[in-house]
């Protein structure tokens, strides 16, 4: 049960049940849709990018708890960040969820995203945790639909 409790922490379940920044963003100038064909997770990210800064963000979709919570926490973390900072955060987050399960994860600079360290115990769920980030990257790049395949 312990690794399950690490995966499904109260904080994650709260973001799953009450996702922040949920709904389409009016005035968005970047958008992208992500899809995980394995489990049917689907997320659309809306961004308002001004200069090199993400000034607002919204998302819609349906997915598992890990996917929804990850998207919700990401949306909170990214508001006000520069594009370069967002990409750097994705790199760190990816390392957090894909690192070896027996190593103590490095959570420097990850803030609230650190709660997702339990995902590394469940390799099949990595795609759930990173779908939002891949979608974000696509929105920042060219706004095409991405899949996790």
């Amino acid at each position, binding site marked *: 049960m312990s690794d399950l409790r690490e995966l*499904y922490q109260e904080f994650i379940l709260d973001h799953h049940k009450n996702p922040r920044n949920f709904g389409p963003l009016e005035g968005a100038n970047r958008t992208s849709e992500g899809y995980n064909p394995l*489990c049917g*997770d689907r997320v659309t990210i809306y961004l308002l990018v001004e200069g090199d800064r993400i000034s607002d963000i919204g998302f819609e979709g349906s997915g598992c708890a890990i996917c929804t919570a990850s998207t919700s926490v990401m949306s909170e973390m990214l508001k006000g960040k520069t594009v370069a900072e967002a990409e750097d955060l994705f790199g760190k987050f990816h390392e957090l969820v894909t690192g070896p399960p027996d190593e103590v994860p490095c959570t420097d600079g990850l803030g609230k995203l650190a709660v997702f360290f339990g995902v590394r115990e469940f390799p099949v*769920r990595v795609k759930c945790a990173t779908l939002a980030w891949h979608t974000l990257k696509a929105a920042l790049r060219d706004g095409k639909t991405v899949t996790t395949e």
Partner: protein
Amino acid sequence: MSDAQPTGTSTKSRGLDVREARRDFPILNREIHGHPLVYLDNANTSQKPQGTIDTITHYYRDLNANIHRGVYELSLHTTRVYEEVRGKVRAFIGAADEREIVFVRGTTEGINLVAQTYGRTHIGAGDEIIVTTMEHHSNIVPWQMLCEQVGATLRVAPITVEGDVILDEYRSLFNKRTKFAAISHVSNAIGTVNPAKEMIAIAHEHSVPVLLDGAQSVPHFPVDVQDLDADFYVFSGHKMYAPTGIGVVYGKLNLLEEMPPFLGGGDMILTVSFEKSTWAPVPQKFEAGTPNVAGVFGLGATLDYLNGLGMSQIQEYEDGVVSYAVERLSTLDDITIIGTPRQRTGVISFTIKGVHPHDAGTILDRDGIAIRAGHHCSQPLMEFYGVPATNRVSFGLYNNHNDVDRLVAGLETVIEVFR
């Protein structure tokens, strides 16, 4: 005599003895995350009995040779067993003639074979092909590809919310442009047993041939293709306790004989010259290249095993377990069973209030319980029910009441985690 080594003890007179049958499946001794395995993903692929595993080992260790080619003892022996298994398949599904049994990789390849041979020569621009809402992607996509190639149209027979085909609507789809119908015998996603015999009879009233997707029926109850009057019947070995990579296309002899080959190559020809080649007679015409010989041996062993247990006995036993599961799941407030068909076999799909199937699947796995979470390669059906995915439990002959109890306890944990 074949080299198949059945391990099942005949229990026909007294029904299936599940405790004895469970001993035939070595994987059931495994522990997953510290718990005895409860395997409830049989519609995806089933586990293999020891006799089937031993037969494959025996083939590679003692018998390995190619078929239909050598003049030496090993090849002659292997060819003989390979053809004997064809005969066993014929008997198992009640076909009239061994030549009506074509070995393929599985159901998917089988349906593609029929679409690209019969379909390409009999279905043209403006023609229509009928499927149902509950088809597996493998009984949709090959027909869509054919439609694109020849300019035909796919028509879809609707279902009720309970998960039964609406027969009047199905009947009304037939017209003079209808050239083919491809129907699942049993739904892999919700477990509906379609009234296949009646649906075939309706198609035949309009002189339309029917392919039945038998992937989810052959493992669960006796099938008689002649009684059904199916024109094509396609199924996989791996869902019926046989190896992966082996499956069967049954086709009525007159249809197979007039169809062009599917793949070209060795073993499917009579003569080859650079000007023109001629085809071997059926079924070799459809078995180009070296086939999955070990898979055929394994399939033969599995058929011996299932015949030893008796398909009617398996059906009776499994129906009891599935009914018990429906009853137990119905007592959980947060669970909604998707589809309540008139006749069900093997499969139950359900949703859990507030819990995505993927999360449920992960939590159950930690209790050693394997279920499927997803769209089950039936996205149009998921859309019909307005869900992106479901939890699916699917049963085999070795599942018992204890497995159902463990499932229910696991689901209580899932609900607790998300409360």
